[in-house]
C-alpha cells in the first residue's frame, strides 16, 4: 500500500475549479517533486491535503495509509503524520515558539495515545533540532515567527517538521523568498529527515530547490492535473525549456 494515494481529485475555491483530476501515489521513503506554472494548482493541492477551510473537494479521494484523509480535521491529519510546510508561515504574536511547539507535539501524542513528553526531554529535542538549523534560543522564546526574516521562518518550519516527526511532509514553495545560503540550510534540514519510513512531496516552481533536495520522481502539474511524470532529469528539462509547452496544452 502506498503511503499517500490521491485518486481523481477535484477541488474548487470560491466556485473556481482548480484541481481537475489529480492522481498520485507516493511510496514510503520517496521524494516526489511537483512542479508547474503559476496557477496550475500546486498550492491548492497542498492546502487540500492539509484541510484548509475554503477548499472544497468535489470529487475523488485522498488516502493516507489507506485511510480517508479528507474525512478528518486538519489537526487529526497532523496527528496521523501529515505535515505541511507553509509557503508563508504565519506570525503568532504572544504565543512563544516553545509553547507552540510543546502544545503541538503533546496534542499529537495525546491523539495517538502516547504519553506527554516530559519538559526536559522536550527541551533537549528542541535544542538539538534548533542547533542543526542555526536557530538561536532567543528566537524560540519570542512569539512564533514574530520579527523573523523569510529565511528564519522557513527554518522554523523545518524545525517543527523535525520535532513532530511526520511520515508525509508536503513542502509548499519552501524555496520562495530564500537566498541561496538560506536555501541550503533549509534543504540540509530536510535531507537530514529523509528516511525509509518517511516520504516528501516537494512543491516548487523552480528547479534550484531540487539541486539540494534531490527528488526520486518529478511530476508536472498543469491546469489542475498531473500531465507528465519522470525522473529527476525532468526538472532539468523544465529549467531549460520552461513551462511553455504545458501552458500551450492549456490553451
Amino acid at each position, binding site marked *: 500500500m502506498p503511503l499517500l494515494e490521491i485518486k481523481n481529485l477535484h477541488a474548487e475555491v470560491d466556485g473556481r475549479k482548480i484541481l481537475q483530476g489529480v492522481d498520485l501515489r507516493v511510496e514510503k521513503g520517496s521524494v516526489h517533486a511537483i512542479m508547474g506554472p503559476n496557477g496550475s494548482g500546486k498550492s491548492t493541492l497542498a492546502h487540500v491535503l*492539509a484541510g484548509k*477551510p475554503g477548499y472544497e473537494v468535489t470529487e475523488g479521494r485522498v488516502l493516507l495509509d489507506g485511510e480517508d484523509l479528507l474525512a478528518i480535521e*486538519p489537526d487529526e491529519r*497532523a496527528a496521523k503524520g501529515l505535515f505541511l510546510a*507553509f509557503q508563508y508561515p504565519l506570525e503568532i504574536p504572544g504565543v512563544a515558539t516553545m509553547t507552540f511547539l510543546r502544545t503541538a507535539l503533546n*496534542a499529537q501524542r495525546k491523539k495517538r495515545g502516547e504519553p506527554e513528553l516530559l519538559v526536559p526531554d522536550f527541551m533537549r529535542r528542541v535544542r538539538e533540532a534548533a542547533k542543526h538549523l542555526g536557530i538561536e534560543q532567543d528566537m524560540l522564546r519570542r512569539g512564533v515567527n514574530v520579527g523573523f526574516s523569510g529565511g528564519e521562518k522557513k527554518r522554523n518550519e523545518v524545525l517543527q517538521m523535525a520535532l513532530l516527526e511526520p511520515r508525509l511532509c508536503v513542502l509548499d514553495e519552501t524555496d520562495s523568498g530564500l537566498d541561496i545560503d538560506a536555501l541550503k540550510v533549509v534543504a540540509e534540514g530536510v535531507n537530514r529527515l529523509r528516511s525509509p519510513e518517511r516520504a516528501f512531496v516537494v512543491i516548487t516552481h523552480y528547479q534550484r530547490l531540487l539541486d539540494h533536495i534531490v527528488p526520486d520522481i518529478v511530476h508536472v502539474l498543469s491546469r489542475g492535473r498531473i500531465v507528465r511524470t519522470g525522473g529527476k532529469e525532468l526538472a532539468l528539462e523544465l529549467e531549460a525549456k520552461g513551462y511553455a509547452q504545458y501552458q500551450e496544452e492549456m490553451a
Partner: protein
Amino acid sequence: MTVQAAVPIRTAAEEQLAANWQQAKSGLPGPVLLRATAFERFAKAGLPHRRVEEWKYTDLRALMRDAKPLAGAPDAAARERARSAGASLASIEARRIVLVDGAFMPELSDLAGLEAGLTIGSLAQALAQGDEAVVSQLGTIVPSNDVALALNTAFMGDGVVIRVAPGVSLARPIGLVFFNSGTRPASVFTRSLALIGNGARAMLLESHEGAPDAADQVNTALELKVGDDAHVDHVKITAAGAGALHVSSLMAAIGAHARFNEFLFTVGAPVVRNQLFIRFDGEGTVAGVRGASLLKGREHADTTLVADHIGRACTSRETFKSVLDGESRSVFQGRITVAPKAQKTDAKMAAHALLLSEEAEADSKPELEIYADDVQCGHGATTGALDDNLLFYLKARGIPTKEAEALLIQAFIGEAVEGIEHAGLRDALMEQVAAWLQARE
C-alpha cells in the same frame, strides 16, 4: 414656570435611593455637608441614562429596576464565608485587608507588623472621629461631577484609608478584598483613600468578589494620590460576586517623575462599569493604564477613562482588551486630554475587542483633546474575530480547534497582562484566563 417642573419623573430606583437617604443620613458617619451636597447633585440629575454621553452605553436608569437597602453589618456567617476570599492575592503574598458587605473587618485583616511609614485604617472610623486629614481630602484628589460618584459620596459607609510615608518602599503588596456575602441583596457603598508619599513604592490590589449569586448593587470608589518620584501599581480584579451591578470609580492624581501602572481585570461579573479619572500633574511621569475583560452570557463591562495630561513630557499607554462570547457586551470610552502646557506628551490609547460569537457586541469610543502643539498622541481600535488563517496554521500542527482558539485568546489577553510588573500576579491572572477558556463551551 418653576425649575422643579423640568425635573423628570423619578424612577422606582430613584425614589428608593431618596428614601434610603432620608432614612440613613442622620446615621452615616462624618461630613454632613459633603454628603448632603453630593446627594443634591444626584437628586437634580437623577440616575445617568443613555442620553448622558458619559453613560451612553451603560444606562443606569434602565439597569437599576430598584435600589436595594443599604447593607447592614455582616453577621458571623457572612464573615466566615469571607475567610477563603482573595485567592488571587496568595500569588503575590499580599497583606490581606478584608471588607465584608462594605464594612472593614480588622479581625479578618492582616494588620500585624505594618512596615514603618505604612498606616491602614477604616474610613468609617476616620469619618466618625472627624479625622480632618481624611475628610479634607475626600473628593479633592481629582474632583468630578459624575453622578455615580456623587451617590458614593452621599452614602459611603466604610472603606480603607492607606498612607505610605515619603520614601517608604513597601515590601509586600496590599491586597484589598471586597467580599459580598450574598446574605441579602443590598446597596454597598465603599470609599477608599490611598495617599502615597513622594518617592514611595507601593502595590495595591483590589479584588471584588463574593458569593457568585450576590445580587448587590455595588458602588465603590478609590481616591489615589501618587507623590513625586513614587512608583505605584494599582490592580483591580472584578470577579463573580462583585455584585449584580458593580460601579467603580478611580480618581488618581499622579505627581512628577512617577511611575504609575493601572490594570483592570474583569471576569465573571454580570454588569461592571469601571470609570477612571486620572490626572498627570507633574512632569516626566511614565504610566500604563491597561485592562482585560473576559465576558460571556449577557455580561456587560464598561471602561470609561479620562486621562488628563497637565504636566509636561509625560508618557502614557492606555491599552484595553476584551474577549466576548455569547451575547456579552464591552464598552470602551477613552478620552485623553492634553493641556496647553503639557508639551512633549506621548500618549497612545488602544482598545481591542475579540468577538467569539455573532451575538456579542463591542463599542469603542476613543477621543483625543489636544491643546498643546508639540505632542505625540494617537489612538486605535479594532474589533474582530479570531484569524482563520492562524487557526488553520495551529490546527495543521496537530492542535485541536478549542486548544488553538485558547492559545490565540491567551496571546491576545497576554499582550495587555504583560503590562503588569509583578510576575506572580501576571501568572495568576493568566491562570484565570486559562480557567475561563477551559469552562468555555
